[in-house]
């Protein structure tokens, strides 16, 4: 590649390749990113996005090809060298020290020193300068542990800029954010680009790409398929490029439903600390029905989910599962009664990252005490598990594989496989496709639909309104701990939901009976 081809790009990779064993993770990728642009990179899990970024950040060394920064070839042998070269990365899982303050985290490892001590004032001045330029107010003395995810992410970004970053790589930055936080972040990215910073945005959400990116590159099976200016492509074309000709998600027709499985009556909880009190929640889920609960973050959705799963802090009301009162029983007994739970946090609630897939599938309680002394495999032999992994299309997963070695989408498939292996009558699930690639997301949706067709009831908590609209027969909106709206899935628009989420009265008489 000649010099003029790399001109104008802050960073340029030339025929970069990387292979792990038999797997060609990245194949001859030549990608250029300009200063002052937001460059989105999309592709399924395992398409090579992460490996490519790891090469740019010095975590992984390329087998072939070269990296050029401002026209000069560089060797990035470690993240330290990459940072020195002006590259910053915000990971999907943050690398902040939770026990330290915001300011301490920002300057950690790059502290201005005066008389051998950290010059807090100078540190704060510089951090503040960056933050004000971006229009982000920050409480510098707050402990990071006490901050919500969205704020922690901004701290990460400022931390990177504090080190003089000129290229900022964000790996699925909105995966863990609420819609509001996502919107703010996207605005922030535009601000960074306006400040002549090159931004690489890795994401699964095409709407974000269309909203914020100047250009978009599509990766598939390790190769860079195409790069387009965002203005010249449609979401549909991008989906086709990403999927490589696979089928698109279809909206499910509304079906008549069966008997009432779950009846929640006048359920109320206490508020404590930051937790919202639930006020007299009524809801029902019938056999074969998918009911979605949507809310803007912090309106009681976490509290309702936990009350249904664990009975946390219930002060009044009843939860009936198949006419059995399960209001005050532990989760194990609820599961024996036919409820299964797929919690929202894959890494702290749903899966043992450091255990094998087989052990994850075998985790579960017992009905009678003497069953504690039975063999732990629960009749799930290696071959049964392998079969289930094929069924759920868990790529790169054998029964003995550690879950942490899987991509997010495949981890979620394992989590759903475990949940459904209990042959449940009711599935309680939260944000099943958050941070999951499009193809895996579709598989997860399809599985949930199939189970519903066979008569399982589903109560789906989600921040993703598209997900609610494409799956649910019934959509409930939570606002300040109460149900602010109840809609039929096939007769509701995004606008109706949005209004209810903000506590506004419905624009048209579209409310239906639950």
């Amino acid at each position, binding site marked *: 590649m000649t010099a003029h081809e790399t001109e104008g790009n802050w960073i340029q990779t030339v025929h970069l390749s990387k292979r792990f064993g038999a797997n060609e993770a990245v194949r001859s990728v030549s990608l250029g990113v300009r200063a002052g642009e937001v460059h989105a990179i999309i592709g399924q899990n395992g398409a090579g996005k992460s490996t490519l970024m790891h090469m740019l950040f010095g975590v992984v060394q390329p087998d072939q090809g070269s990296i050029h920064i401002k026209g000069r070839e560089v060797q990035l042998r470690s993240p330290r060298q990459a940072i020195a070269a002006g590259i910053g990365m915000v990971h999907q899982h943050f690398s902040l020290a939770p026990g330290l303050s915001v300011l301490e985290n920002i300057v950690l490892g790059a502290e201005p020193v005066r008389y051998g001590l950290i010059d807090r004032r100078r540190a704060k001045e510089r951090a503040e300068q960056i933050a004000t330029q971006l229009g982000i107010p920050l409480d510098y003395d707050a402990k990071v542990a006490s901050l919500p995810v969205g704020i922690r992410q901004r701290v990460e970004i400022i931390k990177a800029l504090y080190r003089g970053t000129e290229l900022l790589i964000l790996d699925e930055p909105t995966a863990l954010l609420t819609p509001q936080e996502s919107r703010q972040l996207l605005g922030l990215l535009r601000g960074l680009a306006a400040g002549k910073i090159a931004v690489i945005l890795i994401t699964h959400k095409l709407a974000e790409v269309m909203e914020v990116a100047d250009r978009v590159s599509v990766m598939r099976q390790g190769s860079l398929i195409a790069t387009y200016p965002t203005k010249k492509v449609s979401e549909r074309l991008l989906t086709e490029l990403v999927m490589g000709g696979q089928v698109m998600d279809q909206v499910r027709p509304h079906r008549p439903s069966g008997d009432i499985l779950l009846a929640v009556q006048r359920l109320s909880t206490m508020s404590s600390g930051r937790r919202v009190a639930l006020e007299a929640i009524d809801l029902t889920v019938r056999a074969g029905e998918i009911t979605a609960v949507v809310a803007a973050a912090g309106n009681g959705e976490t509290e309702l989910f936990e009350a249904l799963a664990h009975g946390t802090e219930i002060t009044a009301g009843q939860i009936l599962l198949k006419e059995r009162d399960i209001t005050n029983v532990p989760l194990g007994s609820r599961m024996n009664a036919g409820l299964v739970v797929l919690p929202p946090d894959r890494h702290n*609630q749903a899966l043992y990252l450091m255990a094998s897939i087989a*052990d994850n599938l075998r*985790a579960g309680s017992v009905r009678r005490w003497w069953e504690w002394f039975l063999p732990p495999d629960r009749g799930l032999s290696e071959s049964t598990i392998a079969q289930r992994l094929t069924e759920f299309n868990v790529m790169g997963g054998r029964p003995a594989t550690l879950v942490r070695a899987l991509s997010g989408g495949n981890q979620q498939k394992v989590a759903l496989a475990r949940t459904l292996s209990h042959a449940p009558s009711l599935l309680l699930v939260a944000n099943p496709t958050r941070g999951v690639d499009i193809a895996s997301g579709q598989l997860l949706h399809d599985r949930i639909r199939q189970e519903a067709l066979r008569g399982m009831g589903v109560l789906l908590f989600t921040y993703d309104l598209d997900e609610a609209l494409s799956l649910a027969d019934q959509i409930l909106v939570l606002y300040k701990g109460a149900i602010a709206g109840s809609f039929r899935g096939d007769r509701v628009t995004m606008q109706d939901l949005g209004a209810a989420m903000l506590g506004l009265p419905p624009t048209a008489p579209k409310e239906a009976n639950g």
Partner: protein
Amino acid sequence: MNASATRKLAWILLPVALAAGLLSTGQTSLTEAASALLKSGFAGPDALAATVARAGPLILAGLAAAVSFRSGVMNLGVEGQVYLGAMAAAWVGFSHPPFPGWLHAGLATLLAMLVGATAAAAIGWIHERFRIDEVITSIMFNYLAVLFTAYLATYPLKDPDRWSGTTPLVLPTAQYRPLWLGTDLTAGLVLVILAIGVVLWLFYRTRLGFAWGLCGLNRSVTAWAGLPTGALITSSMALSGALAGLGGALLVLGLHHRFWAGLAGSVPWDGILLALLADNRPLLLAGLGLGLAAFLNGMTGAEAVTQIPSSMGQVIVVLFLISALLGRRQTRQALGQEAEAA
């Protein structure tokens, strides 16, 4: 040989070299010192019997720690539970029982286990109920238990024929029967083997042991999987305390035949180190326990030749431990990197 094996070997050779350096500072040559060490650790049936007998309490204390560590709670109160168990065994043992003599040793053992189990389960329950760190409560509990048993041995249960704070000799009916006369090998060895077997069975062949392991991996995920984490923690603490109490019973009924303050010496903490070293694997733990006992006995033999105090053995043990833990940390990091790249 690949890089990781070389590194492992280096971590083993390092403390061996340090130990050799230490032994060569004595009044004899290194070879003489080493042969004296090996002789009194392993050579001949008597030395082997002494090693096995010494290993018993170490292994029980180690298993006690391993059972709690596996489920993610740190029972550092093994010491206190050993002392409570030892005192319970001694008390039943020297009392003239209102029951047939053939039950005596068994009942003394059972009470020792029960006392240890109750104490440890209480620590687990306090942890679950009030969210108080079990590391703190269990360490503080050691003071309570050690001082309380010392008080009992000094006042109400003191042997009136002796000056120091010891209890009377346990009756012959309560002593573990010798398996091999003239050595310290007793029926207690059977109990140790049984304990290893039970822990192995629980850990690898039952849902209970599997669920303990899940708690140890991630308690939050375990609770979301519908498992009763509180009951799991408390039960694992109870078994841990029972094993520690059994260790105390073995010290009294099998080896010393009476209780005195300070009777357990470094056994409980050595046991905790064994559990850490063996990564809670029972068989490896038993093997390391035998090795440690052989080494400590060997150092006593070497002392006679070299005049190096046998307590220097503890120093070498600690060096070995640090080295082994560092070595394991290294290999773990290497594994972690492989998993990242995959």
